[in-house]
């Protein structure tokens, strides 16, 4: 009974999360939805007498794989959202037809099979789920297991090779950067000094709060431009509506 309840709750949650994964515009939301699905599945594994897999699911998927996804999302641009306009003619229609048809066929197929009562993992888990899994992996499937170690090493090496970038020119030193900054200052009058940090003279220390200049005006330069788009750049305390760099508030 408990399993049935768990199943139905998690089934609804996981299907909803999966749909969210597919249909949310922002990749970050998709990643979070995937996390939800994975956690639900971990619980379902546990319910089905596979505690080791449940643990591995959480550690490997929600722990490692999800973090990798998020890292890459940050690299690629977390703020970018997909256009949902389909460019390939008929792609979406046929994708749904094929997907739904596939699901319907499988469901029909499974529904038609009259399963006997499950044997259950009782006999195997008698000595513990992990020892019996270990016995299978290190005896019968030991060769496959060794091959997976080679696969993982290859994958790690491959990722390093792919992500590695050869330096084409000499590294610019601080001296070079300084020279360039002052050269730009001499030519265009660009500010050679570092940008002001956020929250200077501010009443809040959040990163999205702009710094105040000594005269009380707001420095837009102090806020990360990504954050500036998301949040109010104006501090509620700011006495002026129009704030420009270096202006004194009236």
């Amino acid at each position, binding site marked *: 009974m408990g399993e049935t309840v768990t199943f139905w709750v998690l089934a609804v949650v996981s299907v909803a999360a999966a749909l969210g994964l597919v249909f949310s515009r922002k990749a970050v939301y998709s990643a979070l939805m995937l996390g939800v699905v994975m956690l639900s599945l971990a619980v379902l594994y546990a319910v089905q007498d596979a505690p080791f897999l449940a643990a591995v699911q959480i550690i490997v998927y929600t722990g490692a794989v999800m973090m990798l996804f998020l890292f890459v999302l940050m690299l690629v641009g977390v703020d970018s959202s997909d256009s949902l306009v389909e460019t*390939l003619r008929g*792609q979406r229609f046929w994708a749904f037809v*094929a*997907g739904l*048809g*596939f699901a319907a*066929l*499988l469901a029909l*197929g499974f529904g038609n099979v009259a399963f006997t009562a499950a044997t259950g993992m009782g006999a195997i888990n008698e000595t513990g789920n992990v020892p019996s899994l270990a016995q299978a992996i290190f005896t019968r499937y030991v060769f496959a297991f060794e091959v997976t170690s080679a696969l993982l090493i290859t994958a790690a090496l491959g990722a390093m090779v792919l992500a590695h970038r050869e330096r084409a020119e000499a590294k610019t030193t601080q001296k070079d950067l300084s020279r360039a900054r002052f050269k730009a200052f001499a030519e265009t009058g660009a500010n050679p000094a570092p940008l002001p940090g956020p929250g200077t003279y501010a009443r809040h220390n959040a990163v999205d709060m702009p710094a105040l200049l000594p005269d009380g005006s707001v420095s837009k330069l102090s806020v990360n431009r990504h954050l500036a788009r998301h949040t109010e750049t104006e501090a509620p305390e700011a006495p002026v509506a129009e704030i420009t760099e270096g202006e004194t508030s009236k």
Partner: protein
Amino acid sequence: MEPAEILSNPGGVIGVSWLMIALPLLGAAVLLLGGRRTDKWGHFLGVLMALASFVVAALVFFQMLGFAPAERRVSVPLYAFIPGVADLGLLIDPLSISFALLITGVGSLIHIYSIGYMSHDTDRRRFFAYLNLFVAAMLLLVLADNYVALFIGWEGVGLASYLLIGFWQFKPSAATAAKKAFVVNRVGDFGLLIAIFIVFTTFGSVAFGEVFPKAGEASQGTLTAIGLLLLLGACGKSAQLPLQSWLLDAMEGPTPVSALIHAATMVTAGVYLVVRSGAAFFPGDGTASLVVTIVGVATLLAGAIIGTAKDDIKKALAGSTMSQIGYMMLAAGLGPVGYAFAIAHLITHGFFKANLFLGAGSVMHGMNDQVDMRRYGGLRTLMPVTFITFLVGYLAIIGFPLLSGYFTKDGIIETAMEHNAILGWLAVAGAGITGFYMSRVVFMTFFGERRWDKDVHPHESPAVMTWPLIVLAAGSAVLGAYLVLSNRLMVFLGPAVGLPEELPAFHVVSPVGLATLALVAAGAGYAWLKYGRQEVPVVAPRGSFLTTFARRDLYGDALNEALFMRPGQWLTRLAVWFDNRGVDGLVNGLAATIGGTSGRLRRIQTGYVRSYALSIFVGAAILAGAWFVVGTL
């Protein structure tokens, strides 16, 4: 009397008679494989091999003379060529040895002559190699004891002829002439080949010794078919109508070649074939024999008429060759009496025609290779030896009393006359024309005004060329009398070709002979009127319709072109058209269809990975559906 039975190898020189063929073949191999290393002594080796072959032939001949006439046909098996079908072997009998002696004897003289004639040619070694090859092939042809080996020799002489006509292959005319000779000969060879096939299917063998005795068992129709097909082969090789057209062009080869191959030996192979197969396939009264005589008469007249109009000395002689071989063919169609006269005329013709050709070669040698007789004239004092020997040959060919031609040709004419008066009188007319055109050659060349260019300095040829001429002239003079009087050759050949019931009595003076002589004298006299007494114009006059007719080889080439060449070209064009439109159209259409379809199909490759994924997914869905449908059934 029927031909004698073929006995087994008696040993002695006859046992090694294959040396006759092997020696010149060895010479040809050494000269061809040795290349330029043999340039210095190559011609001597060639002459030596020909002479050695002659010596072997002579020894075989003398050994044979030691046997009784009925034992003079022996077979020398060499090895199983095609086991059970054709054992390669030599048939040594009076007929084949006569040919072998003629080929090696005249061949040797021409080899010697060629040393001088070809002395300025850088390729003299190759020339001797081909000559040796020819001698070997010709000997295989006449010595073979079965049709297959004969055919190998037959093709061998065709090859040698081709190589020698085209010896100066840098001249387009020579290359073309060689090709023409080869192609026309192929028509005849085709006939011979079919004849051999029929012989094999009918008699189960191709060996003379097995086929000829069984000839009576076959139906008359089969025999006639074989005879006519053999005749086709003979026509090709012997330049008889209707396959005569190549011989005149073959004069593009060096003159010794014309003398040896296209006068004395190879072109007589057809006569040999008819005589050899005569007892079996050309009985004197059959259809095939009748056709042989008709072909012979037609060719003897055609050749003679062509000979009257040619200004090229070699072509005039080539026309004469055609004509004389026509006489031989005529005789060969007349049964056993005719065979003997055919062979007798063949042998004497071998001598006097080789003599005439070599004489013509000697003249050309002294005249910077000029062949136009209108550019000769008055050469008798400048080339006395050539003149005298040429004169002997001339008198022999026109049948001057007591010289060779008088006996052999009159023998043919009289036999023909007994057989069929029309044939006889046509042959007499041919003799008259012979008298005219040969006199014309002699008058234009050796008498009258000197018409050659200023820079030509005629001179007598060296001894190496004149001695063969002298030997041949001697042969031309006396051989006929020796062979024909008291039927010497006929009796000698008897064991090979059969003897008539009663030997003909040869009259030195006969009414037909006198008529012939009168006609020949008239021809010669007319030639003297036209070319001896009158001045010969340097440029040929236009002449009448008949002259043009003769000059253009009786329109033989035009006929071939109209009948075979043009339809052949149309057929070729049709085939090309069909190939371009039909075959290529089909192939190209198929290619275009596949190309077009592929061009459209490749649009499926959009490059969008999602499209590919969709097709995979749809495929998976279909598979699942199939599994579901099949699984629930």
